[in-house]
């Protein structure tokens, strides 16, 4: 018995070491660095700096764009996932949706520079249908469009799984009891897929908050997110303290969102 317990503990070692090294230690390091100012002294200067208009505005706009990206991803992903579960070869269709996410993000971003460019495919199309050439690249529209495109597979997957595992008996029961199609969806299907929606929101919102490559490539730095600032502080200024401070706020935001979304789950269950 004792021996059995020992083996089990032994199996735990890799996980414990992993979590310690790659989850807890980095977070502690980030928090430690956030208290080191640019001269290398311990201080709260970075936190004071965070609460200046520049960074507060940046935080607000990051949240706003992350919200928009999550919202549009959800609006596209939910009906898609729903229709997918109704198709004949659903695993194949799902695979086709996931395959683009295997392509490197940078490549996709460069492809979009070509597509949205003045002489790109999108503008040729607008020309043909009579709207005429528009500036698409380096606008809010292109930034949100490309971000949504990139995040959609991550939103579809959890929602698809949630819809797919609904017991069809429940739907039959709803119909037998006289619920209309809409009622069935609103009162049966949607509540049962809330968990999928919440996972999708978690997977999309948090990375969207710290997007940085697209802000430059697609938005031409018209959109500045917290991720952009972190990149600049670590690579250019080498002000690790300030970069870490922003990261601390991102971690707090992450926990808040995890807490909010999982809190609802308990109430629903």
């Amino acid at each position, binding site marked *: 018995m004792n021996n059995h317990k020992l083996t089990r503990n032994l199996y735990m070692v890799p996980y414990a070491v992993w979590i310690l090294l790659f989850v807890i230690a980095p977070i502690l390091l980030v928090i430690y660095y956030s208290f080191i100012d640019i001269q290398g002294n311990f201080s709260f200067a970075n936190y004071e700096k965070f609460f200046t208009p*520049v960074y507060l*505005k940046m935080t607000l706009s990051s949240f706003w764009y992350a919200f928009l990206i999550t919202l549009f991803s959800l609006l596209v992903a939910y009906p898609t996932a729903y229709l997918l579960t109704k198709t004949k070869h659903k695993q194949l269709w799902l695979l086709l949706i996931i395959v683009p996410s295997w392509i490197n993000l940078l490549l996709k971003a460069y492809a979009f520079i070509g597509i949205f460019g003045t002489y790109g495919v999108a503008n040729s199309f607008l020309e043909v249908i009579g709207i005429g050439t528009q500036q698409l690249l380096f606008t809010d529209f292109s930034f949100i469009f490309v971000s949504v495109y990139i995040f959609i597979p991550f939103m579809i997957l959890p929602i698809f799984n949630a819809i797919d595992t609904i017991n069809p008996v429940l739907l039959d029961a709803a119909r037998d009891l006289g619920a209309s199609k809409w009622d069935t969806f609103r009162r049966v299907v949607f509540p049962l897929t809330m968990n999928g929606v919440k996972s999708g929101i978690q997977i999309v919102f948090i990375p969207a908050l710290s997007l940085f490559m697209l802000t430059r490539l697609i938005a031409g730095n018209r959109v500045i997110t917290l991720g952009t600032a972190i990149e600049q502080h670590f690579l250019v*200024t080498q002000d690790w303290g300030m970069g870490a401070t922003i990261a601390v706020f991102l971690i707090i935001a992450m926990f808040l969102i995890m807490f909010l979304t999982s809190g609802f789950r308990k109430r629903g269950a």
Partner: protein
Amino acid sequence: MKKLTQAFIAVLIVSVLLLIAINRLNASAGYSGNNTLTVFNWGDYIDEELIDQFEEETGITIIYETFDSNEAMMTKIKQGGTTYDVAVPSEYTIEKMREEDLLVELDHSKLPNLNNIDERFMDLSFDPGNKYSVPYFWGTVGVVYNKEMLPDMEFTSWDDLWDPRLKNEILLVDGAREVLGMGLNSLGYSLNDTNKDHLHEALEKLQGLTPNIKAIVGDENKLLMANEEAAVALVWSGDASEIMWENENLDYSVPEEGSNLWFDNMVIPKTARNIDGAHQFINFMLDAEVAAQNAEYVSYSTPNKAALEYMPEEMVTDERFYPSPELTDKLEVYENLGKENLAYYNDIFLEFKMYRK
């Protein structure tokens, strides 16, 4: 449990065998001992024929690695995992590397070809007496513009960029020193100015440029200019000459108020094992004919005066890339302003980017 132990031992044995195999392979390929030299350079920044030529002449095998930013290069050298023998940092990085004691002093007696370098480019502020570095290529920061899209415009002054006709046509490079430097220069200040009032004045002036700015981008500006997505861009001269080959409507000019003069330089980092070989390589690259061939291939400006004779006339007399001494006198090298001032520059630049709508 027994099975686990067995599996563990098996993995261990395989690892050791692989390690031995790698060692053997490296040895047979000549990747060990005294006859190799690891060169760490920017991507596409050397004529590769010259590497073969060097290997033939000296019997030294070159391992060639590339990087795409000074910061990335410096981090790798600091970590010290690879024994880089020669690296090519830009001038402000040399100051940082010197401060952190990452460089080996050069032995000038082993570099007789150092005499080929133009006097103007020796003994500069970032490395007095060239104790640690030898210039490899140099250039300016200026404006690349599309003559066909802007038929009657010239860029002799920075203020030309503020012309309302350029609405939504300018690409800036995503660098605090470059953009603020432009603001400071246009006001007649030095681009190494650290006076906070002057910096705020520059910020205000730059904010007036906002309607003309299409985007603030990185290396993509080359692609965007070549594809005529925008009419004007702030660029390094090296990038300008590169895209001018691709699109002949493009032209380059350095505004007369002054601008930045930059250098990429060969150094021997502390990680070097083959210091003798490193000197041999640097001396080889300083040879007049070799430097000429390299400059023709890379199409950046060479500081090698003796090499100019071996280069095509139209390349050497091109004032855009080999500006007259009168203009180079007005150009300034970026000084290492120290972390605090650099942070201040970046804060201002961030503010400029934030309020840009």
